[in-house]
């Protein structure tokens, strides 16, 4: 793989003028580096998903079931009735083109079918052909196409070249959300067994072990124990990390990458220090050991299947409410789907911070609170002693992750925290942050190595904005609150903007947090020396 990776200068010359004839002619070349490999049969089988078989997208024969067209068309019909979003978005696009250059994959690749309007037209053309009078009557003239194998291959290529980031839907005058179209498109592909392994394997792991990485209970405990040991070394304090503790007040839910990934792990250390300092009565769950949900990238049904354990564990452990860690798509699920799919959470209580007494009114029904809401409230009420000087080696900017931005509206909380725990903070240009934030280019399960070129292309707009603040303000740290970001922004930075590192917000909280009875900390959570004199901040 590594030998084939293109250099940044190879990717920088992008041709935006569409070439070739009409887009109605399906044409797709599965070029190495621009697509993801198929799901392994064992993973599909474990989840009971259809048409498990050995195949690869670049092969001629996709080994589809004989009646695959009927399966897809029936699936479309069903979804047109179940999702008003899908039905409406099939009908009302005027092709004004406002969405075109809003997509990071289009900006980074120049491929016209990556314009959100055309991505949706790939499926809309089939909708017209089989579900509208004009399409049946006028065919191509009405922009309708037959559902052929070539069209299906195009769907696979382009629906796994969309990160469901919803940026286009911010700019669409009708709010057409390509994420909805892509989600349905992927569901339909899944009906005939055309999934990618980078999504289905984590989903299968999660279904079995409770987390995407497939960490079993003893491994989970080892990892948390190891974290506690490390923290003892750094702070001189012995920190309890409760797991499956019945009767705790709070169930803490985090993406599993936090236990094993780098730089996620430093964020985990940050959480643990903070929970210790405020004396939070909480517990991890070794079964609900994953807040993330790759079901979101598979189908609504799979999302619900994986998500069920969250409330089930909260109920079994008898906690009062749920606190969720730093993760983007996990929070799309917790915020917009959890209560509807798996609720009502009437066995839980309305969340109240045990430290400040603040009632989280915005989580009154779902009873799940974002860690940034929780921490911002602590800081605002003066419950944390902070020494921002310990983060002096960082000049920080903040990357809004797509889901917490456009499917939640969590903008001020992380910024408030960052400005409290470090001294130098600079925003990226306004067209690249908040609701207009750009995706890391690897979200929605596309962060696999074989998809490297496309990820670097899709991440270009984000990287370009980071480079701008690096050059103008000396930014050297990209803070974020998303596990996929933490996994995929480091290679993106290395590729386009070397010299910028990536960290979770709570890593910086953990650094700045002055713990009662701690020894003088000589290193930060990364084990790097703290260069500044202790206590030089406003602590």
């Amino acid at each position: 793989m590594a030998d084939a990776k293109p250099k940044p200068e190879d990717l920088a010359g992008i041709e935006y003028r569409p070439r070739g004839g009409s887009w109605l002619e399906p044409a797709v070349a599965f070029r190495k580096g621009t697509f993801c490999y198929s799901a392994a049969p064992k993973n599909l089988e474990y989840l009971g998903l259809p048409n498990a078989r050995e195949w690869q997208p670049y092969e001629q024969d996709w080994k589809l079931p004989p009646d695959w067209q009927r399966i897809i068309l029936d699936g479309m019909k069903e979804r047109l009735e179940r999702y008003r979003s899908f039905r409406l978005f099939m009908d009302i696009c005027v092709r004004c083109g406002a969405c075109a250059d809003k997509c990071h994959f289009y900006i980074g690749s120049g491929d016209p079918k990556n314009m959100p309007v055309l991505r949706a037209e790939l499926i809309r053309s089939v909708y017209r052909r089989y579900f509208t009078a004009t399409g049946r009557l006028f065919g191509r003239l009405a922009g309708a196409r037959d559902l052929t194998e070539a069209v299906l291959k195009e769907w696979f290529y382009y629906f796994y070249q969309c990160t469901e980031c919803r940026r286009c839907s911010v700019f669409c005058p009708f709010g057409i959300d390509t994420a909805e179209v892509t989600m349905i498109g992927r569901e339909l592909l899944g009906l005939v067994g055309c999934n990618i392994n980078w999504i289905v394997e984590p989903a299968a792991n999660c279904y079995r072990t409770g987390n995407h990485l497939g960490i079993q209970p003893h491994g989970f405990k080892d990892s948390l124990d190891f974290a506690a040991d490390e923290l003892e070394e750094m702070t001189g304090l012995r920190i309890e990390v409760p797991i499956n503790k019945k009767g705790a007040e709070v169930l803490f839910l985090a993406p599993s990458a936090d236990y094993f990934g780098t730089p996620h792990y430093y964020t985990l250390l940050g959480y643990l220090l903070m929970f210790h300092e405020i004396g939070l009565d909480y517990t991890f769950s070794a079964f609900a050991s994953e807040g993330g949900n790759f079901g979101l990238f598979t189908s609504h049904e799979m999302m619900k299947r994986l998500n069920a354990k969250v409330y089930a564990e909260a109920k079994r452990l008898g906690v009062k409410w749920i606190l969720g860690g730093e993760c983007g798509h996990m929070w799309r699920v917790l915020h917009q789907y959890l209560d509807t799919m798996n609720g009502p959470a009437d066995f839980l209580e309305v969340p109240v911070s045990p430290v400040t007494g603040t009632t989280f009114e915005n989580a009154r029904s779902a009873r799940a609170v974002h860690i940034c809401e929780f921490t911002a409230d602590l800081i605002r009420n003066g419950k944390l002693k902070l020494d921002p000087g310990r983060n002096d080696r960082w000049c920080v900017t903040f990357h809004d992750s797509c889901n917490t931005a456009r499917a939640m509206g969590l903008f001020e909380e992380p910024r408030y925290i960052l400005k409290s725990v470090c001294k130098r903070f600079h925003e990226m240009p306004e067209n690249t942050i908040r609701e207009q934030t750009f995706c890391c280019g690897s979200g929605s399960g596309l962060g696999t190595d074989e998809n490297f070129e496309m990820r670097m292309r899709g991440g270009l707009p984000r990287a370009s904005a980071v480079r701008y603040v690096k050059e103008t303000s000396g930014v050297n740290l990209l803070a974020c609150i998303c596990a996929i970001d933490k996994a995929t922004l480091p290679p993106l930075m290395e590729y386009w903007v070397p010299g910028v590192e990536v960290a979770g917000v709570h890593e910086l909280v953990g650094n700045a947090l002055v713990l009662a009875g701690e020894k003088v900390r000589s290193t930060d959570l990364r084990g790097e020396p703290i260069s500044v004199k202790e206590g030089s901040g406003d602590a």
Partner: protein
Amino acid sequence: MNFLKALAVALGMIALAVMGSGFPVMRTFVAVVAPYAAMGLFLVGVTIRVFRWAGAAVPFRIPTTCGQQTSLPWIKPARLESPHRPIGVILRVALEVLLFRSLFRNVGAELRPGAKLTYGEEKLLWFGALAFHWSLLIIMLRHLRFFMEPVPRMVAVLERVDGFLQAGVPAWYVTDAVIFAALAYLLLRRLNDARLRYISLVADYLVLSLLLGVVSTGILMRHFWKADILAIKEFALGLVHFSPRAPEGAGAVFYAHIFLVSGLLACLPFSKLMHMAGIFLSPTRNLPNNSRMRRHLNPWNHPVRVHSYEEWEDEFRDKIKAAGLPLERP
């Protein structure tokens, strides 16, 4: 080319109407049969389409949040861009419908050497679209004077305001000039930009061609080949009262005008023009951002197969025990 196909249809319709205006049978067809048929198709078609949308479930509350959520009391929420109350949602949709809020956000991305991206304001599309839609609305309201006797005061006032320039006899309406310019811009934009040319279907050009035809014939009738207003008014009232008679002296341009309008009406329910109704139903705009505050109900929330804690404990029992974690059933 897609544009030429669409243009041919529009021109063909004009030719048919113009030539037909010399024959009584064709006059009846163009001025009586076609408008009623078109109106029938329009009403039935739009109703069916809207009911079909309304009949589709809204399983999840999925607003696109374009501003700060309502969370902690000291953080200022974006009441319009991320509303959590119905009033905020109503205002948000109203802003979209009346002022094209989202289109106003439009920026153009440009790639500079060295893989640098810059973003520039791009308000022209918003301005052109807004100019077109508002002009169209005002023009349609002005047309009420043909269909109502006496002419409502509001319509008369609207006419006076629209014609305030008092240029020419009869006075040019501002909206006539604006809508023509806006449509020309929208068409040229589609033809001129390689990206838009690539995504444009015949239907996109057809709608623009028909609209340009309607506007042009309207302007021609008022200022150049002046039509017999009284005859047209009599005819229009006849249409409303279901006693239509095709006017004899109304002129060929009038026939082209009404035929194109009928064409537009008839194809509207089958076309993207349904966005005029769809915008009100868009789930990313017309739902509040309060899914954690109030539970949203999914009408088809089917049960799914899940992996229970008990199954999990059974599979990993030894490892859970070895790790010293508590078991439900030791």
